[in-house]
């Protein structure tokens, strides 16, 4: 079943001499439960693609359809709300809220939506990611790998339609990267999640079910 599709996605920054074509017509389809990795060098347009897929950035032209919804038909506020219900993000630099504990960070998207977190489910995620001892710690008290695991837990907690991961191992050493990737893959399977991950690291990319390559704003 197709959960994400994009058609003729283009994104142009600037104009005239400084004009940059970050995306030049990307078509992509991702099925439910799939773990897709997008590889590309720096400047290839992979980050722009991910931001656009996640509704953080509006494309110059083209469509993104998630779970049957054309996300750019939504206004900004509605798009943000859509995002917290349907999309989970994992960033390179973890991006946890420093004044909140691990637990609070994980349930934040659920609570932002005015829902009560399903405690058992959240505990299960925390347990799977090996964070049980760190529940009440603050992000600054965690290592990079631990912080990224919290970010993954946060992305999973709201049971989104899709998880977008932007270089999730970019700030981690290789051993920790392997661990985090393993967990991402395992939890993805365990909780039946669709994951789109971008990376420049071929080795990491190989851990996905499918790998596509992006160069100069085009899928090759």
């Amino acid at each position, binding site marked *: 079943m197709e959960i994400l599709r994009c058609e003729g996605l283009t994104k142009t920054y600037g104009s005239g001499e400084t004009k940059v074509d970050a995306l030049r017509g990307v078509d992509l389809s991702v099925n439910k439960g799939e773990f897709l990795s997008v590889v590309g060098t720096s400047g290839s347009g992979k980050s722009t693609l991910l*931001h656009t897929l*996640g509704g*953080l*950035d509006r494309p110059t032209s083209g469509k993104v359809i998630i779970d049957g919804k054309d996300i750019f038909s939504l206004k*900004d*506020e509605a798009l*943000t*709300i859509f*995002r*917290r*219900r349907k999309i*989970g*993000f994992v*960033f*390179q*630099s973890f*991006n946890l*809220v*420093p*004044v*909140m*504990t691990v*637990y*609070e960070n994980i*349930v*934040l*998207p659920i*609570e*932002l*939506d005015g829902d*009560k977190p399903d405690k058992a489910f959240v505990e299960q995620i925390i347990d799977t990611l090996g964070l049980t001892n760190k*529940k*009440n*710690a*603050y992000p*600054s*008290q965690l290592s990079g790998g631990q912080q990224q695991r919290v970010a993954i837990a*946060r992305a999973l907690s*709201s049971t989104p339609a899709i998880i977008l991961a932007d*270089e999730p191992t*970019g700030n981690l050493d290789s051993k920790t990267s392997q661990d985090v990737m393993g967990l991402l893959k395992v939890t993805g399977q365990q909780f039946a999640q669709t994951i789109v991950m971008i990376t420049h690291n071929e080795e990491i990319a190989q851990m996905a079910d499918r790998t596509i390559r992006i160069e100069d704003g085009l899928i090759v």
Partner: protein
Amino acid sequence: MKNTKKASGPKLQNKAVIRKVAKDYVLKNRMKSMVIVIAIALCTFLFTTLFTIGGSILSKLQESTQRQVGTTAAAGFKYLNEEEYEKIAADSNLKEVSRYIPVGEVTGTEFLKLRTEVHWSDEVSAKKGFSYPEAGKLPEKEDEIVVSSLVLQALGMQTKPEDYGKLLGSSLHLSMELKDQETLDRDFTITGIYTGDRVSSSQIVLVSKAFQEKYAPTPLTSYYDRGTDLDEIYGRISVDVDFYLPFNTAGQVASLIERDGLNPETEVGMNWASLTGSMDLATLGIVIVMLITIFTSGYLIINNVYRINVYSDIRSYGLLKTIGMSKKQLEKLVRMQAGYLLIPGLVLGILPGILGGSLLLPVVMNNLSISDTAGTNVQINVWVLLFSAAFSYMTVMVSCKKPARLAASVSPIEAAKYTEGVMHRKGKKAKKQKEQKNNAQNKRYSTFSFAVKNMKRDRKKAALVVLSLTLSLVILNSVYSMIRSFDEDKYVERFVATDFAAADATLDNPAVRERNYEGVSISFLDELAGKPGIEDLGNLYMEETFQEFTDEDFALFNERLLKNPDFTDVYSWDGEFLLSKVYRESKASPVDVYGVDRFMLENLKVQKGELDMEKFLSGGYILVNQYHMELESDKDMIPYFLPGDKISVTSNEGKTKTYEVMALVDIPYAFRVQRYTELDMQYFLPENEYFDLCGQHTPMRTIFNVADEHEAEMEKWMKEYTTKVEPTMDYTSREVYKNDFKDFTQMILIVGGLLTGILALIGLLNLANTLITSIMTRRLELAMLEAVGMTKKMQIRAICAEGLLYALLTGIIGSILCALFSVVLVRNLGVGMWYFAWKFTLMPVAVVFPVMILITLFLPYVIYKKTMKESVVARLRLADN
């Protein structure tokens, strides 16, 4: 030796580089630099205004005291001869030496109340003695003189400063008493006039050197050589000196006497107008508290602005560190930026500060009676400016010390990811964790709890913001409750119990020592009698006497008062001296003897016994007052004498008569002489009896009521009469005191309002700054929150809640502090003021609070909108680059 040098390393010539980088920072961040310049300017404005006013008042007070002393010179050596003078004049350790020679004293009935001395004076001494002519020149020929405007007034001439020129060259007849009681009666030519001040202990008429040499030649012998005629002082030289250092005058005088070989017994007058001597501890305390408050408020602005600057530049500081800038250099960099911004800040602040000071000074001065010649113009003193500038400089340097250290201590890695709050948290891990464990799981996200958490990130800063907002609230509330506690009726009632009152101008002037107790002239009374609408009129006569009690009287006086334990309690501190020396030994006391007419009698409060008006007026009776234990309450009265006692009264003319005490009374403050003697004894006799005993006098004070429809007309006439016809007289009316009261409360309102305004501005600036920093440093975090689904609306709500929290905290803490200040400080401030009836109020807090809430809601909204213009993606990139 070699090792030490190696350890400390060679001195690097890198100042120029840092200066260049600092300059780049200042110029690049134009907006930020502007904010800092404004903050510094605001601070400097505050300092300069306050110091200008303070400095001006201080210097006017000092001048007033100097006028009383008669000179600005630090010390004066008296009764010297030429040889002794030369010794001092040749002393190279003195800043300035000047001299004058007393020649005699002006005599005549006109000068009975205006002591006027005749001097020859050199130019410097005339200037220092406030007698240098404002128009004309110093006398040269024998018949030439310089006089003060008061001397001319005493002789019945009208003098306004603009008329001085016209009077030059005209002749003036004066009588003088010179050396050996010789008298001189002759015409002089006026060559110069200066404005006299009643605060001075005596007026000076300056004569020429030729005159002095003729009538009071300086003796060759020394006054201090035993055997010469010690009584003769005319002709002797008085030498005024100023030292280079303005302190330890006594020590410098002593060493001068030794150094110049003067007689150790040389009489020296030291100027007690010198600043340091005239400030008591309480005043000093208030001044220090004021300075600290001012400094704190300045610190509050600049420190916060600086922190923000450092926070927002912290990434680039981290970068500078990566490329090898040392801690010290970074610190220097931040301080240098402050230095660059200081100069425009100072310039922008000092000029409006002077302006603000000169606009406010008249308002403040209006309510201070210093001296006749003290104008309301600002004395722009270089020291005041330097002090304000130094104060600002100090504030800026102290304020940016911590931010500089923060910048220096940043690690290059952390700086790139710097988010507010994270850095401060590290030390408190254990405590935090424990605290959070209890509520981590059951505390759900809510706008409010999120805001509280954000506020707690930097408790110190939150406290600073709340403090600076509270400060203005407290001052506003204190000022307001003070003004509300002033009772206008009480105030006016004390000074005028009737519609109008007239007396000599010196009578109620606290600055004057020689009062005129017979200041209401017959011609005034005659003219007044012809005015329409006068309903009641009363005259009060008074002479100061020293009553030697008969043995019987003293026995009563001693029994009832001096031996009364209540009284000795109050006077225990200096009772020994007072009682034994003055009263016990001499068996006498100063007593004000009043003559009262029927209307005045009706206004006396009878406290004991009965006042039979007709019986009293028929003669043989006397009314006396009682001793007030506390001056302002009606309780605690101790009678000197009781009704039925017989006491004898002796007038200054020497007549003695015995009267029977009819009743004990109290005279309203508005009528009496407005000063107190130690025991404050008063006798009251009927008008006729008084004339009989003390001789014919003109009234000390005339009081009268006027029909309402004639009041305005009378006010106008009185004003005109007392300024044009008899300027030595002064009048008071209800209207005058109502205006007085208004002026007074207005001064407090204006000064307090300005202070509050500035502090409120500082508080709001701080709040704005805090929110800006908080939002700026959280840009990434907020972007991420948006990425995971926190809508902009939710973010705005959270940030506004944060602002609201500040308002709530300020409201709560402010209310408590305001109440505390009102109860403790304001109430006690008013204890000494009789027109003060303390009222508790938190009205200003109640009024300001809603406004504050609106501002604290509105401000974050605007700031958020402004700073969040960048797209989420752009902000998210901050983290990865």
